[in-house]
């Protein structure tokens, strides 16, 4: 019989899988239908394989929007919908915005001890700290900002259709619209949230015991450690309550640390203090400090370090500092 051929059987499975795929994507399905679906998928391994294959194909169809001229359909709809509710002038602005989604990368940077406020093309505002660099890329389905170095405080314009991502090393922060600060230091990335919710994800870590994803709400902060390996036990630290993230130290000219590593403190200092501060050995930077000082007090802070830590501080004629271990006393 014709119908007994392997080909016919596969075709039949695929047809059924396509039917299920479409039904599962319908928002409303009953628990009875859930049971039928599980029964079908568990009854034959080929069912799940066919279902996945069709799901992948359907996902790829969505990708075509980015790659082909099929995309303008979506943009047109977006602009027309928006145009119905805003004035004609604003609508022109949106047309420009829609077209500029495919703009190439843009880079914004600050010098040492310089700060800057940047308004991005979606209306989001970025306060750039000293010695910081961001790169922006706006795509048809997402807004992306890479924090190359330093720190930035973000006031993200709400746009549910275009999630806003901030990438810092392997850390990705995802938001829809909110205010938060991302700081890329010597040992890791710190995220503090002032308003709304953000998702923090460590893209490098896949852990057995600890999530690589955390959701932070207003008043919370977390840290992601820089690590060379994939498998780790604490990818994204559990959120801790934090003082509401402010625009950043640069607004008040103050730097404050609670039990931070000296390496992190010095990394920040080097974004404000042009003659650099260096360690004789990276291990020196592992010591912990709690301190608060104004950026114009940096030399005084460095020079006073030997009073609280077992270190020596040397200053050269250009104002650069070298922090070294105190030679151990001869026994």
């Amino acid at each position: 019989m014709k119908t007994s051929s392997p080909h016919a059987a596969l075709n039949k499975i695929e047809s059924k899988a396509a039917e299920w795929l479409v039904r599962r994507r319908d928002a409303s399905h009953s628990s009875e239908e859930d049971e039928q679906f599980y029964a079908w998928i568990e009854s034959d391994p080929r069912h799940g394989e066919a279902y996945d294959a069709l799901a992948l194909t359907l996902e790829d169809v969505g990708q075509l929007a980015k790659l082909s001229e099929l995309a303008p359909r979506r943009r047109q709809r977006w602009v027309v919908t928006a145009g119905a509710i805003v004035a004609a002038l604003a609508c022109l602005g949106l047309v420009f915005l829609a077209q500029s989604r495919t703009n190439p990368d843009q880079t914004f940077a600050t010098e040492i001890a310089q700060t800057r406020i940047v308004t991005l093309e979606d209306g989001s505002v970025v306060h750039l700290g000293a010695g910081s660099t961001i790169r922006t890329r706006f795509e048809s389905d997402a807004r992306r900002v890479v924090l190359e170095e330093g720190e930035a405080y973000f006031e993200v314009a709400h746009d549910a259709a275009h999630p806003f991502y901030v990438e810092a090393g392997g850390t990705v922060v995802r938001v829809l619209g909110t205010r938060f600060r991302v700081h890329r230091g010597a040992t890791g990335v710190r995220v503090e949230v002032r308003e709304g919710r953000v998702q923090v994800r460590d893209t490098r870590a896949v852990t057995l015991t600890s999530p690589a994803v955390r959701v932070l709400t207003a008043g919370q902060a977390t840290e992601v450690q820089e690590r060379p390996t994939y498998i780790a036990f604490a990818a994204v630290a559990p959120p801790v309550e934090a003082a509401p993230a402010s625009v950043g130290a640069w607004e008040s000219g103050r730097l404050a640390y609670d039990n931070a590593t000296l390496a992190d403190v010095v990394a920040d200092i080097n974004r404000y203090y042009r003659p650099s501060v260096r360690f004789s050995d990276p291990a020196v930077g592992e010591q912990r400090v709690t301190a608060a000082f104004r950026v114009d007090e940096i030399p005084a802070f460095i020079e006073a370090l030997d009073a609280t830590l077992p270190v020596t501080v040397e200053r050269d004629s250009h104002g650069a500092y070298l922090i070294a271990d105190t030679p151990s006393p001869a026994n």
Partner: protein
Amino acid sequence: MAERRLTPLPTSPNDAPPSLATLYERHWEELIRYVRYTFGVGPPEPEDVVQAAFTHFAALVQPELVGNPRAFLYRAARNFVIDQRRHGLVRARAAQRGFLQDAVEATDEHDSERVLEGKDHLRILEETLRGLSPRLRDALILHRIEELSYVDVARRMGVSQTTAKRLVAEAVLICHRAVRAATGED
């Protein structure tokens, strides 16, 4: 000088197997979407399911042998949900601990799987989409690219919801078969 490497050296950056970070970046969102519509919001929660799938992949002894990491991740996510359902949470946790062992078998299974280069794959898909009858093409584009619900697809096309679903199903089936034929599985 003898070449001692067991795995072929990449001849260009495009040939290098994608890193875990790259896979995460590319596929996290779509996997969450897949798990959410297929199995609902849980428990297990879609984030946990997708995390388990990536954990599974990360535990592979030779992940570079997986011909199609994306398909592997879809399957790992689906198996995780089914396993949790079938055997309950306790068994699933045991399975999670046993990933290293499972992983070796999974690698063998996927050893022969081949994928088209991303661009070829999408080109075939796009050609197929263009070749579809206008009704099938519109239904698929409205649903997947313009992200309309079936209710809205039906309204826009002036057909019933049942018809809208049938058109989308048929369109995705034709696209899938075209891609499958191109990978030379037949």
